[in-house]
């Protein structure tokens, strides 16, 4: 009798959870955290800003015709000499509107960070899953390589690659991909090791489905969730690393400044109290990375990377 009431109690509780699709449950869980909701909202705003930003800002900061040297080093809130608009974030030494420069810098930073994360994720995942599926000597070799790579700090490896290659957007992306692939490969291999022992892979193998289809259509989709978490966190790191490299003068060229380069340009004026040239680009950088980390933290909690391993 008691067991029956317990059963009916669990039965009445269970259906709402069971009837919902896993995707909808994840979305619900994700938005249950206020900070994660804030994070994804900020991120969405930043991406929209990066896409349509050039249409909104008052000047193209890299069109020298639009710059007025008389407006150089104005504090935030100052009016332009020719009249017309207000410099809400001040101007740099060449009279460039910092707000416009920041929005252009945001585009470069996001493009380089997210682009390199995507390339590194695809490459690393492919290598990791291949290693797990193939096993044997190939796997041992790949794992050694990953260990070797991860035992050196990313910033130094990237620094050295750029010291050899020289600065440039493509070179920065290449350097970021080279330092990042190993993290993805390690996680992908860990997840794939667990997945490949499961029955559905065995079933697929018994059906003599071609190996490529097993890898891409069966194994890969089931390995994705933890990789999405890693990719989120790594994209934030990539953006931060790119900014650091550009700050050190080894990153993007002066013609395509990212937020890091803007900060570097303002560095020399900082000691004389003109804080805004470095401060606001850095604030933008901080908002991007905080937003990504808030989203990444919540994704990690709901997907639970550790349990999946």
């Amino acid at each position, binding site marked *: 009798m008691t067991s029956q009431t317990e059963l009916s109690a669990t039965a009445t509780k269970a259906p709402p959870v069971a009837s919902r699709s896993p995707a909808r449950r994840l979305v619900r869980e994700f938005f249950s955290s206020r900070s994660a909701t804030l994070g994804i909202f900020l991120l969405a705003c930043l991406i929209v800003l990066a896409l349509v930003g050039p249409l909104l800002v008052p000047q193209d900061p890299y069109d020298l015709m639009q710059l007025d040297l008389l407006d150089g080093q104005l504090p935030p809130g100052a009016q332009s000499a020719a009249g017309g608009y207000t410099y809400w974030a001040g101007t740099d030494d060449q009279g460039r509107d910092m707000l416009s420069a920041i929005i252009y810098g945001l585009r470069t930073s996001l493009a380089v960070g997210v682009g390199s994360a995507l390339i590194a994720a695809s490459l690393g995942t492919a290598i990791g899953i291949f290693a797990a599926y193939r096993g044997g000597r190939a796997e041992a070799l790949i794992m050694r390589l990953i260990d070797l790579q991860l035992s050196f700090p990313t*910033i130094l490896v990237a*620094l050295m690659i750029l*010291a050899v290659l020289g600065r440039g957007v493509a070179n920065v992306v290449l350097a970021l991909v080279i330092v990042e692939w190993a993290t993805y490969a390690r996680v992908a291999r860990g997840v794939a090791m667990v997945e490949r022992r499961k029955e559905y892979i065995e079933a697929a193998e018994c059906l003599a489905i071609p190996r490529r289809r097993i890898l891409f259509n069966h194994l890969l989709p089931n390995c994705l969730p933890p990789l999405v978490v890693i990719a989120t966190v790594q994209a934030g790191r990539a953006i931060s690393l790119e900014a650091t490299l550009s700050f050190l003068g080894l990153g993007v060229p002066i013609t395509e400044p990212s937020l890091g380069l803007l900060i570097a340009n303002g560095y020399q004026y900082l000691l004389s109290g003109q804080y805004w040239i470095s401060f606001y680009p850095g604030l933008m950088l901080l908002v991007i990375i905080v937003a990504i*980390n808030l989203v990444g933290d919540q994704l990690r909690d709901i997907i639970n990377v550790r349990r999946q391993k």
Partner: protein
Amino acid sequence: MTAWLVHRIMQSLLVVIAMTAIVFVAVNVIGDPVAILISPDANQAERDRIIVQFGLDQPLWRQYLSFVGGAVRGDFGNSFVYGMPALQVIFQRMPATLELALGTLVVSVAFGIPLGLYTGMQPNSFLSKLTLSASILGFSVPVFWLGLILIMFFSVYLGWFPAGGRGETVRVFGVGLSFLTLDGLRHLTLPVLTLAIFKISLVLRMVRAGVRDVVPQEYVKFARAKGLSKQRILFVHILKNIMIPVVTIVGLEFGSLIAFSVVTESIFAWPGMGKLIIDSINVLDRPMIVAYLMIIVFLFVAINLVVDILYTLLDPRARLTGP
């Protein structure tokens, strides 16, 4: 244990050898050393003389062997800029970097562990939540920008701490140290704070996660049931068990501190290895770059080895699984 140690040391040596090859190829094959060594208007005879002098006419494997031969004797050639052996220049700068890294490590452990224990034991208190939110910020803020902001606020606005340099040093065993003088400590404060914010957040989160894992376990319940004091449970039973991952991370982070000194030293004009390598890259001081890279490789392989050995000493389970 001995077999494991031998195996592990062999492995480390292999890594060092592999890295010398990579560094050699990267620095000597990509790019043209002759273009840097000789002025563009030198005549052909002069070019040939230099090429022979530096052994650039030899096949690649022979060049590599002579490079390794020099490296074993600690000879990486003379720095183009300083005109003395590159290794010597680096060793002169190394204490400054190590001082910065060790200072940061001490500060991060001194703040990170107590904060982590507190947030782990009292997960629902307001202070814990505030600390955790602050740690997300600490994780996210780019180190170089944080350095600039600290300079802006504490040096330019308040005038409390100097914006750069090392200050007065005291020579101990022929090595200049800043932290023994008041002036040196004032110079040390901002760079250490810049590096420590991230590390405190990291240690805090590690310790907190460890506490949350350990507290529900049987042996803690048992210790509580035995009537042991809260302090004893916390500091002996809990802390001892979470120290394993913390020691590993702190050890590995020491390496990353040396790496990130590249950034902090550039901002605070701290005369260490990090600033040296950035300057050397900017003027393409090739022997310096090679020497620095080899030192870094050696340092990191050594750190990884020490961390692994510490790990086996701290955790008996790791000994059983072997290599």
